[in-house]
């Protein structure tokens, strides 16, 4: 198919000078690259916070009730005798989930890498709405600050009757009415929940603004010759993610506002009449629905899973092709699979609610759609294998993490075949089987995507290479570690170990999970320690790393045609012209084994 190939626009140069003041350059910047790094840094901070919380949880799960002296210092009220109480455990868990899902999984892949590289990969000088972009980041930042405040309500509420905890205890899903009843329902459920849901509502607003920006940018700002089917798969993933965010975050925002109203304005959206809580009949609320929250939450919550994982899928395709030195296998199938996942993702939320009390007939419908969504996921896996097959693989660190992503995606995704079936879900629901499933796929697979992205793009973002040796050690420890932690979760779940339990010691039938818990804790400690290698590598490479060339990976997409790091206006004010698809590796007859998207010449046939 012939393309309209624009001639290079010689002479038409629109340079955008970089701002000079520190504040406009690094703090309230409208440069998508600075904003990308800001998002990425915010996620980096958050991921270490989230991981620290999981470390404390692993201490409790491995050695329930044991005294640890340092806990007294850390939580003078919530752990006054050095042990983790039931409510402290739950608030650690709630914060872990919220920080990880929103401020890591939703932030780094899209806000971080998407912001930085979508404009460059399509050949634009910036996002469509740079000021809106700045606003999105700073609202996200405020949301994180508010969440951290929810963490430490005990420091500024001086009520001797209130058990001191470090935040809400209802889990990241915040099911009502537990989340709607205030302190009566449990410590941290009053002010803690109010701050928590305010943070999430702010995050929704920021994500909405971001999504609008991504969609507009990709549709309107592509360089000449960058037809839709010449877009790198990363761009398709970011675009679809933005569409999902645009359609799902408003629903969570609405749910959040309703929950706030239940707390602050005395409404009863989620509180039915006749509640008897903590020894008292509640007369001021009636008429609400306890199941409404779940519908609203999961209508957002399931697309959210894909918001977290799609960018990782796009990046994995991109990185696998780059380092296998082979075009992506089935490019079009990959694009359609992303669409299919995005679309079907809106019709499966009920699989989180099979046992919630909703109609058993709708459960059957949700189950059928859920298993159908496995098909495009399988297509992606087949095509990744197809991309590797017959390649000349260069085992760089980003490539190892991308391969790890495929493995984790398979391990985490395939157990959805159990959970998506109504009948098998009955015993497995709310057990460690589910925890293992979603940690593998939306947790660590997505994080492997972020690691791959960091190792892959660090040279472009900071102009320095990361240390490959440390990177490989980091990969080995992390890959072995996460499998050692999360695969055993599945058999614990089969044995019936419920999730969100501060201890399984009280269950006779699940006695066998106790030693397992301890082994997993040890593996978790080693894996967490391994992440310090990553941190050291980041800092060391940033300060002292080898200088990166423009195109250290011999890759083809547009970000590799410009200096590392790129100038303020990306392409020096000259719009690049695109001549071919994004994955032209190993083209027969070409002088080298890769052809950049900007290279004119013969064989402009593929990837039209």
């Amino acid at each position, binding site marked *: 198919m012939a393309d309209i190939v624009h001639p290079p626009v010689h002479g038409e140069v629109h340079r955008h000078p970089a701002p000079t003041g520190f504040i406009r350059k690094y703090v309230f910047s409208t440069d998508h690259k600075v904003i990308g790094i800001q998002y990425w840094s915010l996620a980096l901070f958050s991921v270490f916070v989230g991981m620290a919380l999981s470390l404390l949880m692993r201490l409790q799960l491995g050695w329930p009730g044991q005294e640890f002296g340092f806990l007294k210092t850390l939580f003078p009220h919530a752990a006054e005798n050095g042990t983790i109480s039931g409510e402290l455990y739950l608030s650690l868990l709630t914060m872990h989930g919220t920080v990880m899902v929103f401020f890591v999984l939703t932030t780094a892949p899209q806000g971080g890498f998407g912001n930085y590289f979508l404009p460059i990969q399509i050949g634009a000088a910036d996002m469509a709405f740079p000021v809106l972009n700045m606003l999105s980041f700073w609202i996200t930042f405020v949301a994180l600050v508010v969440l951290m405040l929810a963490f430490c309500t005990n420091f500024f509420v001086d009520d001797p009757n209130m058990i001191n905890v470090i935040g809400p205890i209802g889990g990241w899903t915040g099911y009502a009415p537990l989340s709607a009843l205030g302190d009566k329902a449990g410590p941290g459920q009053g002010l803690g929940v109010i701050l928590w849901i305010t943070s999430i509502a702010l995050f929704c607003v920021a994500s909405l603004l971001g999504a609008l920006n991504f969609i507009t940018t990709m549709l309107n700002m592509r360089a000449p010759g960058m037809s839709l089917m010449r877009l790198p798969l990363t761009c398709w993933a970011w675009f679809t993610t933005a569409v999902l965010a645009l359609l799902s975050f408003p629903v969570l925002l609405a749910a959040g506002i309703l929950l706030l109203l239940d707390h602050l304005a005395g409404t009863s959206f989620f509180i039915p009449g*006749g509640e008897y809580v903590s020894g008292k009949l509640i007369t001021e609320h009636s008429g609400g629905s306890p199941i409404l929250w779940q519908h609203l939450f999961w209508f957002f919550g399931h697309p959210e899973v894909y918001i977290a994982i799609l960018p990782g899928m796009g990046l994995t395709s991109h990185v696998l092709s780059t380092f*296998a030195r082979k075009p992506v296998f089935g490019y079009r199938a990959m694009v359609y699979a992303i669409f299919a996942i995005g679309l079907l993702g809106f019709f499966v939320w009920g699989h989180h609610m099979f046992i919630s009390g909703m109609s058993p007939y709708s459960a059957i419908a949700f189950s059928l759609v859920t298993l159908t969504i496995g098909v495009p996921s399988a297509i992606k896996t087949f095509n990744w294998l197809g991309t590797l097959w017959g390649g000349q693989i260069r085992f760089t660190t980003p490539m190892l993490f991308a391969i790890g992503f495929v493995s984790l995606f398979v391990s985490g995704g395939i157990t959805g075949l159990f959970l998506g079936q109504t009948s098998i879900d009955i015993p497995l629901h709310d057990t460690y089987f589910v925890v293992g499933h979603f940690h593998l796929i939306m947790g660590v697979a997505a994080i492997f995507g972020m690691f791959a992205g960091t190792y892959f793009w660090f040279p472009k973002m900071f102009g320095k290479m990361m240390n490959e040796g440390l990177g490989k050690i980091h990969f080995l420890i992390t890959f072995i570690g996460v499998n050692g932690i999360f695969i055993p979760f599945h058999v614990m779940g089969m044995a019936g170990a419920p999730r969100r339990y501060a201890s399984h010691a009280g269950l006779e039938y699940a006695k066998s999970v106790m030693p397992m818990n301890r082994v997993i804790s040890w593996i978790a400690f080693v894996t967490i320690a391994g992440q310090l290698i990553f941190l050291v590598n980041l800092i060391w490479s940033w300060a002292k790393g080898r200088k990166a060339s423009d195109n250290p990976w011999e890759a083809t997409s547009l970000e590799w045609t410009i200096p590392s790091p790129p100038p303020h206006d990306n392409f020096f004010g000259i719009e690049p012209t695109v001549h071919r698809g994004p994955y032209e590796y190993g083209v027969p007859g070409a002088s080298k084994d890769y052809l950049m998207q900007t290279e004119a010449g013969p064989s402009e046939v593929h990837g039209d």
Partner: protein
Amino acid sequence: MGKITGVLMFILAIGSVLLFMGQKLIFGSVLWWFPVGISEHAAAIDAQFGRTLVVVGIAFTAAQVALGYAVMKFGRKGDARAVYTHGSNKLEVTWTVITGIVFVVLAILGQRVWANLHLNAAAAGAARIEVVAQQFQWNFHYHGADGLFGKTEPRFIDDSALNFVGLDPADTAGRDDAQLTTLVIPVGRPVELTLKSKDVIHSFFVPALRFKQDTLPGMAIKVHFTVKEGEEGKYEIPCAELCGSLHYNMKSNMLAIPADEYDRLVASSEEKFKEQLGELMQRYQYK
């Protein structure tokens, strides 16, 4: 690095298969598996789990081994070029159709037990018990000798007076009712539970029945099951939906006893019921 990564994938595949299907081989016994199953539904769910496990096991192993093989086999060799291909529509269609069929068939098979459990009413003559969950306790309301449940209302609830379920003192049908924190059911006879909650969402989970259902305030959800003859015993009922700080402590027991003994027990007074419960708790051990 390709060799190491490939070997890791093989170890992952073998290790997982052993963990799920070969525990006996490594540990001498099966340490982590479903608890005993005491109902026909439990057996049917286990069978469907087994079928799915075979499909998943094959797909998982094939994918990990293929990935491991690819990274071992296709490592860079000097300056050689990779195979130049953009894919194959024939392959795309083949694997899409095959996975589509397998997944949809699994989904349809998976509905059978669900339909039996949830789309049919309990058989006539079922033993009826009302379950009222609260932070952090299970209450079980028995109808007594008259076979009629006394009227309950939230305004009559008084935990300090041990009226946990809110029995209306004026209703004569409730005079012989019993409120206990242990569930006693007959074996070999259908049991119909009405699940309610006083405060937040809880979840009624009996691992031995492979059964779980959320209990919601403001809703009464009817469920039913039958424990097989010969499965008399003591089983645990943990709460499976996060309900507050002591969620992990919210646990009760289900005593499955011979049907005639159950009838006598339910017909007796609340004091007598409680008395005999102690003896039953001694008689049966956890399986």
